[in-house]
């Protein structure tokens, strides 16, 4: 019985150690990050690059932009919405809830690589779901991409059939 109890304690200890080691690698990833030099992106972020000997159709719709301002925090002081400024090659005037369910990935700043899911949007504000955490750590001028990919990684984009069909914005 004692041996069994020790076994269970050892298992729990292993689990905690494993979890902590993974968690610490995550923290180190963040702490290893080189501070993002906004001037560098301003100077170099919009250089036209090559690689374009292959011409393909977009496989997802995309909206790229920059955080222009933040929405109001909720009652707990957490922030889940921001005002976007359209920047870059993929942006278009937003219609209400056009981005609902799309995947938002931060491309700069302290939350580089962090993923959120859009819960709703207006013409001028984007709100994310709470399940992936709040927007704390984001800064004004951080850039992001929103893709028509759902929380399970499945593309929500179906190319229009027929040559006469109007292309979707963001494609």
């Amino acid at each position, binding site marked *: 019985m004692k041996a069994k109890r020790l076994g269970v304690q050892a298992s729990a200890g292993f689990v905690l150690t494993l979890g902590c080691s993974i968690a610490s690698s995550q923290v180190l990833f963040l702490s290893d990050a080189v501070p993002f030099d906004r001037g560098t992106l301003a100077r170099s972020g919009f250089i036209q690059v090559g690689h374009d000997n292959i011409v393909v159709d977009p*496989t997802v719709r995309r909206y790229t932009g920059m955080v222009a301002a933040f929405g109001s925090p909720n009652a707990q002081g957490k922030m889940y919405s921001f005002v976007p400024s359209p920047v870059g090659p993929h942006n278009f005037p937003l219609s209400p809830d056009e981005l609902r369910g799309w995947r938002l990935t931060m491309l700069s700043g302290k939350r580089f690589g962090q993923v959120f899911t859009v819960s709703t949007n207006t013409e001028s504000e984007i709100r994310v779901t709470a399940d992936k955490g709040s927007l704390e750590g984001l800064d004004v001028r951080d850039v992001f991409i929103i893709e028509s990919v759902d929380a399970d990684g499945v593309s929500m984009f179906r190319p229009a059939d027929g040559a006469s069909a109007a292309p979707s914005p963001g494609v």
Partner: protein
Amino acid sequence: MARWSSTAAITFGLLAFASPSWAQGARIPADAVDAFHAALKKKDTAAALSLLDRGLVVFEFGVVDPTVEAYAFRHLPFDIDVAAVSTWSIESRRVGGEGNERWVLTTYHVTGRQADGSPIDQITLETMILRRTSDLFRIVHMHWSTNDPKFQALSQPSASPQAAPPPK
């Protein structure tokens, strides 16, 4: 039984909390390269970013993405679209380096279909330099080129015979 359920719940909770898709990298340099291509194929932007060092510089066909942000913002979406419609088969690979800096040289046979239906059939050469931090390798430099003669002529007109300097 209840204890095992609790242990399992703790395990699941810790892993779910501790391993978001961006907390990646690889212990073997070539694995990081292959994982990067796999992330592109899966349209997993965050997973692809997690395999890139924050000091990344990309050279592609004579032009430069000087920061990881520049690459992510302008170029990564296109690479995802290309990966979705093409197959990259490894033809050869050499690895080297030591310590925290390694290199992986790979040639791929890239096949597929372009938007107009024309075939993609070319050799792409890839140089990857990887840096190890926190026991994980991430890509700090990428350089791609191709044997596609049409693109070579387009991107490097000075290499054509007509543009060569006259003999002295």
